[in-house]
């Protein structure tokens, strides 16, 4: 235990100061020192002791006191000790300045350090220790040149000055002259063999830098091992650890980390150790530890590179955890600590990645470009930059960059893959080639280089040749690539090629036998879609049922392809195979469920989705599908719950589930008519709310707009709803609802002619055009397709009835107009009567069937129709008789005319005979007489002839009257129609529906049209009545009845258009049953989103895309 003795002034006594029992208050000691005028070296010893024990304040106080002017005065001749005190203070301040991170304080410390050193210099300019101190100060300030100068001055004086040697070595090390530095360290060690470990540490570092790792390691180890040295030297530990880490082998890393940990335990604030520990924990995934360590590291590390590293570690940790905001923040901090990207480029990379993720493409681009500045040939950065260009829409640039990437490293199959993916959007063919190239690349570099050129030049023929070369060489492309090529073929619709590619990708396996149907002799149970027995049996039989994990995706895609090729059976076997081996493959469940759903096997489908949901209960697709199924199954409450869950699972972002919920509410409203208006209103309100929400998210969502409009119409806000409908219709141009006249094409194109709904639209169009026969045939076709749809029968009945009624009217007119009515008349009436009988039969059958509660028609209504048809039949009978009577009369009239003609002929002949005789007799008579006679005869003839033209004129005037009537009509219609001729009824009505669809925008006009039509019909009937025919009175009454019926019944064939019109025009007179029918139609149109969902299902194809390296 050391102690110092302060000699008491003017005596031989001494004050003993035990060094480890120094008083806390430095003034006690100071008082003694001052009182006894102790020598300055004692001051220094005590101050140093304070410092060693950590009492920095006391240390400072003593030294400051020791360098005060009074002391200077008093000890003016004690040069060395005064210098030593000043130097100690200077060194202390340079140390403080070095540690201080804040600029201003740092400068303060350096300034005071400089002050002390200058003062020391003033005392003795040649004192080497002062120069050493100055050198250290300059070194701390980073002023290498001046520091070197300071040390040089000392060394010039004494070339073995150890501190100066060390200082100079440090300078050289910092300058990067490691061998010089090493020499200096060595000299220091020679001069002073028992120097502290730091010297050996320096040697180790120099050797390390010079690449002499073994010697460096020896040096570091000596620092730690030599007992007289510093066994706890953190730097040495860290350096050794680092070296261990860099060997990069499992156990070495372990050792390295142990050393780091030891260093950390000795001194918890060593930034390097902290950073490396954090780094280690990052890779072992202990993010919490990373953050804690890095926080500490940040607190202690020096600004600049170390801080940057720390921030980088922190950022990386957040990045991995997916907290991009924070990661971005720390990356940014890390970047800010770096003056040049060349020093530490990784944070730029990370920042770029995060910005990419957050959608800040431009920022990301600039960061990646910085990376590229440092590493212009970094493939990954090039790829990312290419990707960003794609996102920014600068495809050309993207292609350039990617091509550069592929050019720099033609073996970089990944880049080719990216290039291919990029090309998919623009040019599937080229993309395919790129993929092919990729597959080649992975195998045969030579061919690949060849082909990448070909690819650039787009020479497809050569590509295929290269491919065949590949085949010849016996190479086999990797499965993911073949999978992607297959998917591309699939997307392009080349199913055969896709099939081949998938098969190639899959190779041999149990699936081949399954698809070839080798095991199909085994019985299939009715719950065929869940059946796994097939595979179990196979296994029992000793056949291996294996499915490598990397083939699952391809197998799934293959199954999707089979499904697309309508081979659902085999597809289902493959899906089941996948599930047999990988029961968590949710998509296979979903596909199986979709197959079952398409086969209308609702129960099974629900079960399968249940399985899927077991795998992941938050899967919105599965939930949406389940909801749709439950709705189909009439499970209203469950459906609602499911849609809700689906909506929650997607945070309400999935418009499908929201729409479904909206629809649900709407149906519920339409349904709950009996339950009361209040409930209906709430449901409608909810539905509207949901539709609106979807619309807010996706303003272009037609279904939502349509739904909203329907709800508005239901609530009576027709103006708004009309507007929305019109917009929907405009937006949907190209969808089937707009192409009304093209129903037939549409049927053929989309539904294989199996959609009765569209047939119904078609029938409606025919009905409107009064093409009764076509209408009837169309309806019959629909019945044939959907035999159990009694509505269709009802409609057919109505069509028949309408047909008869209109033919009866028409026959009369044609009877008036056509000059020869006989050939026209009776067939019409006859067919009319036959059709009427059919109508009666159809209606009575419906009426009978209604006893069985098979359909939902009002019996009374049917009876009305039956009654009306019978009535028409009666009318027709009278009509028929009248017609026949007229026919008879006509015949008689003609007979009379013929007889008259005959008589005339006879008379003329007689006269001629007489004339001839007269002529013969009076041939010799005077010529004049003869002429006179002849003239007279001529006159007579003329007179007789003129009677025929007169009657013709009369006919024409009659026809003119008709024309006038029409033109009057035309005028009333406001010149709406351009076409018009003498057989107006057919022609005109053919035009009419067309114009109606064209004039989407002005509904009012259409309404007027309708009204006009209506009036016109009545007009015609009135005219007929005025013609004085009997029975028209009855007919008129009948027609009145019929018209009201038509209003009721024929809105069954729905179309957005008509619904709208109905909603607009007939709102006031709606009867309840009418309303029902209407909501029925709405329901159909609302059911559309379902197909949307299906579409989504279908689109689900798996593509193996490479995933961006996070690092």
């Amino acid at each position: 235990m050391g102690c110092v003795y302060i000699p008491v002034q003017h005596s031989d006594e001494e004050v003993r100061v035990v060094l480890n029992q120094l008083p806390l208050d430095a003034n006690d000691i100071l008082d003694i020192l001052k009182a006894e005028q102790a020598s300055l070296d004692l001051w220094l010893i005590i101050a140093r002791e304070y410092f060693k024990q950590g009492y920095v304040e006391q240390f400072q106080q003593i030294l400051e006191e020791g360098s005060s002017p009074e002391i200077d005065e008093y000890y003016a001749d004690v040069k060395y000790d005064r210098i030593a005190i000043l130097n100690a203070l200077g060194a202390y301040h340079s140390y403080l300045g070095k540690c201080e991170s804040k600029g201003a304080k740092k400068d303060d410390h350096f300034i005071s350090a400089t002050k002390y050193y200058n003062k020391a210099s003033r005392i003795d300019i040649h004192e080497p220790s002062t120069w050493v101190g100055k050198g250290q100060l300059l070194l701390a300030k980073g002023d290498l040149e001046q520091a070197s100068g300071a040390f040089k001055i000392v060394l010039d004086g004494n070339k073995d000055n150890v501190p100066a040697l060390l200082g100079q070595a440090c300078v050289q090390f910092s300058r990067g002259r490691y061998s010089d530095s090493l020499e200096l360290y060595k000299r220091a060690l020679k001069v002073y063999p028992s120097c502290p470990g730091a010297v050996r540490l320096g040697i180790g570092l120099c050797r390390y830098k010079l690449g002499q790792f073994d010697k460096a390691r020896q040096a570091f180890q000596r620092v730690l091992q030599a007992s007289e040295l510093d066994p706890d030297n953190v730097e040495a530990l860290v350096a050794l650890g680092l070296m261990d880490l860099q060997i990069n082998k499992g156990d070495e890393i372990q050792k390295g980390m142990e050393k780091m940990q030891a260093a950390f335990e000795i001194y918890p604030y060593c930034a390097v150790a902290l950073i490396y520990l954090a780094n280690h924990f990052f890779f072992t995934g202990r993010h919490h530890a990373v953050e804690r360590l890095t926080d500490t590291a940040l607190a202690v590390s020096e600004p600049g590179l170390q801080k940057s590293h720390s921030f980088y570690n922190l950022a990386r940790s957040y990045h991995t955890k997916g907290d991009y905001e924070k990661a971005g923040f720390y990356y940014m901090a890390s970047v800010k600590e770096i003056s040049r990207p060349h020093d530490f480029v990784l944070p730029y990379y990370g920042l770029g990645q995060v910005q990419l993720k957050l959608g800040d493409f431009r920022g990301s681009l600039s960061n990646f470009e910085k990376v590229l500045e440092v590493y212009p040939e970094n493939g990954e950065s090039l790829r990312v930059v290419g990707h960003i260009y794609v996102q920014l829409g600068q495809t050309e640039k993207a292609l350039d960059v990617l091509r550069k990437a592929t050019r720099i490293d033609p073996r970089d199959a990944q880049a080719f893959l990216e290039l291919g993916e990029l090309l998919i959007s623009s040019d599937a063919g080229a993309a395919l080639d790129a993929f092919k190239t990729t597959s080649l690349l992975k195998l045969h570099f030579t061919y690949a280089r060849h082909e990448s050129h070909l690819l650039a030049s787009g020479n497809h023929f050569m590509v295929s040749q290269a491919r065949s070369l590949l085949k010849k060489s016996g190479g086999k492309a990797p499965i993911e690539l073949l999978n992607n090529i297959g998917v591309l073929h699939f997307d392009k619709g080349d199913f055969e090629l896709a099939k081949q590619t998938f098969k190639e990708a899959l190779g041999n396996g149990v699936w081949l036998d399954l698809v070839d149907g080798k095991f199909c002799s085994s019985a299939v149970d009715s719950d065929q879609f869940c059946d796994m027995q097939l595979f179990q049996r196979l296994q029992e039989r000793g056949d291996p049922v294996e499915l490598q994990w990397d083939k699952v995706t391809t197998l799934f895609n293959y199954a999707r392809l089979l499904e697309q090729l309508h081979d659902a059976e085999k597809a289902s076997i493959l899906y089941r195979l996948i599930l047999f081996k990988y029961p968590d493959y949710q998509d296979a469940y979903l596909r199986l469920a979709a197959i079952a759903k398409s086969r209308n096997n609702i129960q099974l489908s629900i079960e399968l989705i249940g399985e899927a949901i077991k795998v992941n209960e938050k899967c919105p697709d599965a939930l949406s599908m389940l909801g749709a199924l439950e709705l189909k199954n009439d499970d209203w409450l469950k459906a609602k719950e499911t849609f809700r869950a689906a909506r929650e699972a997607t945070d309400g972002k999935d418009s499908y589930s929201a729409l479904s919920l909206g629809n649900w509410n709407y149906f519920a409203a339409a349904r709950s008519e009996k339950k009361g208006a209040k409930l209906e209103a709430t449901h409608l309100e909810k539905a509207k709310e949901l539709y609106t929400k979807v619309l807010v998210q996706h303003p272009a969502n037609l279904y939502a707009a349509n739904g909203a409009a329907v709800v508005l119409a239901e609530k009576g806000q027709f103006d708004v709803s009309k507007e929305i409908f019109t917009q929907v219709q405009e937006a949907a141009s190209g969808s089937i609802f707009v192409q009304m006249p093209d129903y037939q094409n549409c049927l053929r194109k989309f539904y294989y002619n199996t959609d009765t709904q569209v047939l119904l639209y078609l029938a409606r169009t025919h009905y409107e055009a009064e093409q009764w026969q076509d209408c009837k045939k169309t309806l019959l076709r629909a019945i044939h397709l959907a035999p159990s749809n009694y509505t269709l029968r009802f409609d057919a009945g109505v069509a028949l009835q309408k047909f008869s009624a209109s033919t009866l009217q028409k026959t009369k007119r044609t009877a008036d107009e056509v000059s020869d009515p006989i050939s026209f008349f009776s067939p019409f009436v006859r067919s009319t009567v036959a059709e009427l009988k059919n109508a009666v039969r159809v209606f009575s059958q419906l009426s009978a069937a209604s006893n069985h509660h098979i359909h939902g028609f009002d019996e009374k209504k049917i009876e009305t129709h039956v009654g009306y048809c019978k009535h028409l039949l009666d009318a027709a009978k009278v009509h028929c008789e009248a017609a026949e009577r007229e026919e008879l009369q006509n015949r008689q009239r003609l007979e009379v005319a013929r007889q008259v003609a005959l008589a005339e002929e006879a008379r003329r002949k007689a006269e001629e005979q007489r004339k001839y005789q007269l002529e013969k007799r009076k041939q010799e008579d005077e010529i004049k007489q003869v002429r006179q006679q002849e003239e007279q005869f001529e006159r007579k003839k003329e007179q007789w002839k003129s009677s025929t033209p007169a009657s013709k004129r009369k006919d024409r005037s009659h026809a003119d009257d008709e024309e006038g009537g029409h033109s009057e009509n035309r005028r009333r219609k406001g010149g709406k129609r351009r076409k018009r001729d003498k057989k107006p009824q057919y022609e005109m009505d053919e035009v009419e529906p067309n114009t109606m669809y064209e004039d989407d925008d002005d509904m009012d006009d259409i309404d007027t049209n309708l009204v006009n039509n209506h009036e016109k019909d009545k007009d015609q009937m009135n005219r007929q009545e005025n013609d004085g025919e009997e029975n028209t009175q009855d007919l008129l009454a009948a027609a009145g009845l019929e018209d009201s019926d038509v209003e009721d019944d024929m809105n069954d064939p729905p179309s957005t258009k008509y619904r709208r019109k109905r909603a607009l025009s007939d709102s006031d007179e709606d009867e309840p049953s009418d309303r029902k029918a209407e909501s029925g139609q709405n329901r159909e149109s609302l059911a559309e989103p379902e197909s949307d969902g299906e579409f989504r299902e279908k689109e689900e194809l798996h593509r193996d895309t490479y995933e961006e390296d996070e690092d």
Partner: protein
Amino acid sequence: MKLAGLNTIENAHEESVWAVTWVPETDSRPPLLLTGSLDESVKIWESDDLILKGTNTGHCLGVVSVACHPSGVIAASASLDSFVRVFDVETNATIATLEAPPSEVWQMKFDPKGTVLAVAGGGSASVKLWDTATWQLIVTLSVPRPESSKPSDKGGSGKFVLSVAWSLDGRNLACGSMDGTISVFDVARAKFLHHLEGHFMPVRSLAYSPIHPRVLYSASDDAHIHMYDAEGKSLVGAMSGHSSWVLSMDVSPDGTALATGSSDRTVRLWDLSMRAAVQTMSSHKDQVWGVAFRPPGVTGVRAGRLVSVSDDKSISLYDYS
């Protein structure tokens, strides 16, 4: 096993052709073809040249089904107005007009012995059996409604009977309905035996195998063809390949092949031993409503024939070998 196109008559009818059957040969004449159409007529054709031999009118609304007595002498046609007209093939003389309101009429088939005519009764959920001697209704075989019948079952369309098939010995009868279930009856006891399940969409065509008495084939709107053990109540197999509804089906006389007609406009030939489609004929331009193999004649030496009819108004004849 393959089909080869022989002859096609475009515009054989004025409208869609919906039904076709063969009239077996008699001592005096070769086999004939009978087609029914939406144009309300039934036409008789001579095979193989498809020469029109006669046109029967008298139906109102479309003709949905035609059936011919095994003797080849009489035939029946049914239309959407729910009348069945039984007529003499040679003279076109009406033998009887059958009607059982409110039951509609869909598929009809004579039993193998020719003593009974079975008529699918649509919404009446029953099959009507008519005595071919007296043309009186023998019995109505009603499909029992399922026990778990839900009230929501829309209007009972569930058991709407569309199709019928007789077993080889004529003892059993199967009928297919809109909801996809197939019901099997014991004809002699007029008793319902059981349901066959597996389809969930309309079953429009049924046929028993001519070589395996228990095997029943069914064609459905779900685009699948099922094979059932009709007595063991089990689904033996399923075949898929059509991209839309399978509307019609017939088993070849040798029992090894199946022909189907579909809404996807194709006719497919299926090898029953492989359970796979072996050939697809795409000559029709619209859905194929009927396919029929020619029954083996008395002489039985001539090659097989298959006929198909379609919404495109045409009739196609194929050689089956």
